[in-house]
């Protein structure tokens, strides 16, 4: 990093020169160069002024004392609040309840079909609809079975939907053919409207058997998930009041 009079100074040399941290020989030649080069001198002066501004920043008064309390808390301090700690737990419990809800609903749907296989024609119109927008009508059915459907739950039922649909097809022999040739006799009805009547029929039929559990788990899932949102909000606002 030696400097001759004709060489311009690089950033690091200028910066070190501001701090007077160049080797003595290098410093001497750098100074000599500055004396002859207006460009480098201007760079140097501006860099020096920058450092001057930074050093002129006021030393701020700490907003409070950071002394430790006489009894220092256990090894892992309560970093963040209780609310912040509860967030993952409520979230996990909420997800669990949502999963349970889905399992109960699908179990009900399955057992409902198993108990009453006498109406394969009734379920058939629903199949073409299930073929194209596969998840949506199945979800509708579940949503109707237990009214409190929350946005958070949607991913879960969507994943479960194929499982709900697959055994149904196996149970009703009419289904595969109607799947391949989507209901030629049926007029082109909007899929959702076609799906609703049998779906609500299923729900009505089995309402009395499992519905309380569905409601409980569904509500539980919603409450827990909402709670986790509330906790994370309060944890946030506590941090920056």
């Amino acid at each position: 990093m030696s400097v001759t009079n004709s060489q311009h100074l690089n950033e690091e040399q200028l910066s070190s020169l501001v701090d007077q941290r160049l080797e003595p020989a290098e410093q001497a030649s750098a100074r000599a160069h500055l004396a002859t080069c207006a460009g480098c001198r201007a760079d140097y002066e501006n860099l020096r002024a920058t450092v001057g501004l930074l050093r002129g920043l006021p030393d701020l008064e700490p907003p409070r004392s950071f002394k430790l309390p006489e009894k220092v808390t256990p090894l892992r301090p309560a970093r963040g609040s209780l609310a912040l700690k509860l967030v993952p737990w409520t979230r996990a419990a909420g997800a669990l309840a949502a999963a349970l809800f889905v399992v109960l609903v699908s179990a009900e749907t399955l057992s409902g079909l198993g108990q009453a296989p006498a109406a394969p024609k009734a379920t058939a119109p629903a199949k073409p609809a299930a073929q194209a927008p596969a998840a949506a009508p199945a979800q509708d059915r579940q949503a109707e079975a237990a009214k409190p459907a929350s946005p958070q739950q949607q991913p879960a039922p969507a994943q479960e939907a194929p499982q709900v649909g697959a055994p149904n097809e196996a149970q009703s022999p009419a289904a595969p053919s109607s799947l391949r040739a989507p209901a030629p006799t049926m007029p082109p009805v909007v899929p959702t409207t076609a799906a609703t009547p049998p779906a609500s029929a299923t729900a009505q039929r089995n309402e009395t058997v499992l519905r309380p559990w569905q409601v409980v788990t569904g509500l539980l899932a919603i409450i827990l998930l909402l709670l986790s949102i509330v906790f994370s909000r309060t944890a946030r606002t506590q941090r920056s009041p």
Partner: protein
Amino acid sequence: MLTGGQEASVILLRLADHLPPDCTARTWGPALNGSLDRTILNERASVDAARRGDVQAFNELVERYQRLAYNVAYRTLGQADEAADATQDAFLSAFRAINEFRGQSFKAWLLRIVVNSCYDELRRRRRRPADSLEAMAERAEGTTAAERASTDSNAGPEMTALRSETAEVIQRVLDSLPSDQRFVVTLCDVQGLSYEEAASALGLAVGTVKSRLSRARVLLRDQLVARGELPAVTRRLTGEDVAAT
């Protein structure tokens, strides 16, 4: 800022004239007064007592260094609440790890913990992107309050504190730096540590500190010129510094 250019050049002239030749003078001020030995002895006693679990003794160290710690945290995080959190965390970690302190300088050891605590805070901020946006929005007000509250600043007699608007602009510019560079600039330029002290606080080689510092200063200079805090063309072309050496 209407008179930004004029004001900046006045500050520039004033500061350039008063920039101490030894850039480490500011924070070592008390130590250089001849009480260096006694300070270190007191510190040793406090550290030894803290090792035996004496919180009160440790709190003497807190009292001595909390201003430094908080200011490092504030300048690197740019936000008063986060800076306070990071500072508190740092002292708590320091107390818990006091048995690991073997070094010669408690200050250097503590600074390293403070720096780590600030990096932790930055990581936490990154994990809550929404929150960091809120924080950024609040920052303007927060900084204003913090800067204004610092009117009782005990800046050295040779270093008149900058006007609060200028200080805010500089803080915003600091915030815009890559974090690694911001730490180096905060320690070396804002706090006036030597390259060696900064290197030990950051766990870096001295050469890395030097090059990061120079890059950071160039970025800062360009931003300050762009914001009218520094004149684009320097007005001091008299070459008196050259003559002085």
